[in-house]
């Protein structure tokens, strides 16, 4: 439909500027472009400081490659946030999916082309359970998804207590390690495809418009004849699939199914999505923003390791980014309502 372009939105909001609007306008620009400026600033600064290590093609590919896994899971999370819900289970879903896929392929001997779709389906099913708990049983999303996620932690333990055959087939590992075109790793392509699909759903289909309506004003959406529950369940299912993709890719990268391997993606994903919501659009969650959020985190981490920051600095950076991201997002929303 008619996506509000940033330029237009700026024009629309500026009509409401009263005296004292100058400060407000500055804040609005900071919140709208601040994340982009921050990303560029980091890249420039790191490039000047470490032209030989940071500013290289392999390093950039490395950043993108590592960011791909976060971007996919974060894009799924974006869908649930667009409909005004939360999903705290995604990290655990990814870890669980990573165990399952290795179990299916290496232990049970399922072909890769069957094992992976099966795991994605399971991801969708878990997301659907989340969605049903939130919409039909009406459990608060934070509690429901935290509960489901914790159950999956236990399920992962139970599942991995079976011996997993060591022989992970090369073709499974090749999924993440392959570099088909111009030496660009596979996960980057997979990420671009997933993000493109989600972007099209959100912006070009009626389902996506309905999702935005549900997140924008749920009562108005309901009174427009939108089946609000179904729309939300779809969003949760999508988040589940995306988490399963990330988990699968991680197992492929590690060459094994490892307990709790992907749990940490939860925080990264949240930070990325909230950073993204403060980008270009005033506090709205959107796929492109999420990608930018992921890049900020990935570049930041890359910088930390290049400059040899002590390990304890990583969680500090992560936590600070999360708080900053949510703060910026809130700010953006506040100043868009001029």
């Amino acid at each position: 439909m008619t996506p509000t372009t940033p330029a237009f939105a700026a024009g629309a909001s500026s009509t409401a500027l009263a005296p004292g609007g100058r400060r407000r306008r500055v804040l609005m620009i900071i919140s709208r472009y601040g994340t982009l400026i921050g990303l560029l600033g980091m890249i420039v600064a790191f490039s000047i400081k470490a032209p030989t290590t940071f500013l290289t093609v392999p390093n950039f590919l490395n950043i993108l490659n590592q960011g791909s896994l976060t971007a996919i899971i974060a894009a799924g999370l974006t869908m649930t946030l667009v409909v005004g819900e939360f999903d705290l289970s995604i990290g655990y879903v990814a870890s669980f999916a990573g165990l399952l896929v290795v179990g299916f392929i290496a232990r049970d001997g399922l072909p890769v082309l069957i094992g992976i779709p099966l795991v994605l389906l399971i991801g969708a099913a878990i997301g659907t359970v989340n969605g049903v708990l939130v919409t039909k049983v009406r459990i608060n999303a934070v509690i429901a998804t935290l509960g489901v996620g914790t159950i999956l932690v236990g399920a992962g333990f139970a599942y991995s207590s079976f011996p997993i055959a060591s022989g992970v087939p090369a073709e499974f590992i090749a999924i993440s390690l392959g570099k088909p075109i111009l030496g660009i790793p596979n996960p980057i392509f997979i990420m671009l495809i997933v993000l493109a699909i989600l972007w099209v759903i959100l912006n070009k289909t009626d389902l996506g418009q309905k999702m935005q309506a549900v997140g924008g004003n749920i009562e108005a959406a309901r009174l427009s004849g939108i089946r609000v529950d179904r729309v939300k369940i779809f969003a949760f299912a999508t988040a589940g699939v995306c988490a399963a993709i990330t988990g699968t890719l991680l197992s492929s990268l590690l060459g094994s199914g490892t307990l709790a391997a992907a749990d940490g993606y939860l925080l990264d994903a949240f930070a990325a999505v909230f950073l993204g919501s403060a980008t270009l659009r005033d506090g709205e969650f959107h796929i492109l923003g999420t990608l930018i959020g992921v890049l900020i985190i990935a570049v930041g981490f890359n910088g930390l390791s290049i400059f040899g920051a002590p390990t304890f600095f990583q969680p500090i950076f992560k936590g600070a980014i999360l708080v900053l991201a949510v703060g910026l997002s809130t700010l953006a929303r506040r100043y868009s309502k001029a």
Partner: protein
Amino acid sequence: MQSNSDAWLQVREFSKHFGGARALSEVDIDIHRGEVHGLVGANGAGKSTLIRSLAGVITPDSGTLTIDGVETRIARPSDAEAAGLGFIHQELNLVPHFDSVQNILLGAPKVKRFGMVDWKASRKVAYEAAERIGVQFPLDRRVDELSVAERWLVMISKALARDAAMIAMDEPTASLSDAESQQLFTVVRDLAADGVAILYVSHRLDEVLDLSDRITVFRDGRVTETALRGDLDKRGLIRAIVGREVAAATRPEARVVDRVDPIFEAKAVSRGRMVKDVSFQLYKGEVLGLGGLVGAGRTEVARLAFGADKLEGGSFELQGELLPPNSIPVAVGKGIGLVPEERRSEGLMLEKSVAYNMNIAVLKSLRSVPGLPFLSSARSRSRAQDLITQLSIKTPGPGARIGGLSGGNQQKALLARWLTPDIKVLFLDEPSRGVDIGARQEIHSAIRKLADDGIGAIVISSDVEELAVLCDRIVVLCEGVVSGELVGDDITEQRIIELSYSHIDNQGDTE
């Protein structure tokens, strides 16, 4: 103004504007100790603005308040409390899981050293207050276990525990049974005899006439009549509420409606206390009004028909066929639309564009290829553009944020949401609330145009003039029951109001 009255509380020349709208205009009012003072008037006449000013919720633009000969300024609720003014709103602001003592002392508990609550002293204060009005139930029960009438008594005790010399009550009997109401009236009379002034706000005129020593009538933000007990009867009171000439509003020329087969019909629909056995027909090309006071069940009927609330009895028929209840998507799919009462909270996605808000209910028809879920942005844009032109909506363009439009233009956009080839019945709840005169007329002509095109329109309005000028036929509800129907020349503001207040008269017949 010279205050030559000996009244305990004297309001002089209170005025209050909200934006361009005048809510109170040079209002004078005297309240004496120990009197029951009835406040009546149509919705929006100024009663609640006056009460909110006295309660310190809003501040009047101008005017003075004198209590006991001392000029008093009430800038915030605590000032009102200090001045001995107590307020009981219809919603009863009680903490459900606290007991009565806790609620009575809420915000003003007796405190010992180190900020510890002195429960013994607190209970004493609470029990003393409750005893004054003869409370029979134990005060240590959670208030959510009490009946509504008992909760009122808790609220009154709460005011008394704060040494209130005046208590304002807003629609106290709205959710009370007859017996409970009688019980409350006794308490009100006893309090007055005890020297407490009671400001009694109610739509139930018989009750007001029965209880009040003095009645003040509001209309359009002004006091239009102050009467002592016995000066006015119900008829006179209604005349004072409706106002001056009660002229037949300028109705447009009668439209020809062929009332043979109803396009839409409510058959004895019910839901709880709000909607009781409501039946009416709507014909093709007709503008039907649903009149009545706020809370009479009009909005509830519309929401039931639209599937937004659960139907508990009866049925709706669309073109002679049963309409499956309780599903908005089904209702929408069959060509029923609703423009809700609360534009911002129930209608608009404020952050989204005008086009988005117009198209959200009809996305399927805007796909580029039928059967595929992809939207055609060209179609979306052109539908929006057409409707903007058709309804002359003032907007920078279809892509502009709808939150930036005026109320009238937002309302038109919401109306536009339902303008599809498939629409058959459209409910419009308070379609011109908060919009300016010009937009109001445009909305009215848009509604009439819809009817000309063969749609059945149902308009809900608290504004009797709007109903009178707009509707071909009016069904009036009162306390969830249809209290009458007006067609053609019978439609006058006076008649609509009489039917709106008719519950007491009809009580014997309907129950």
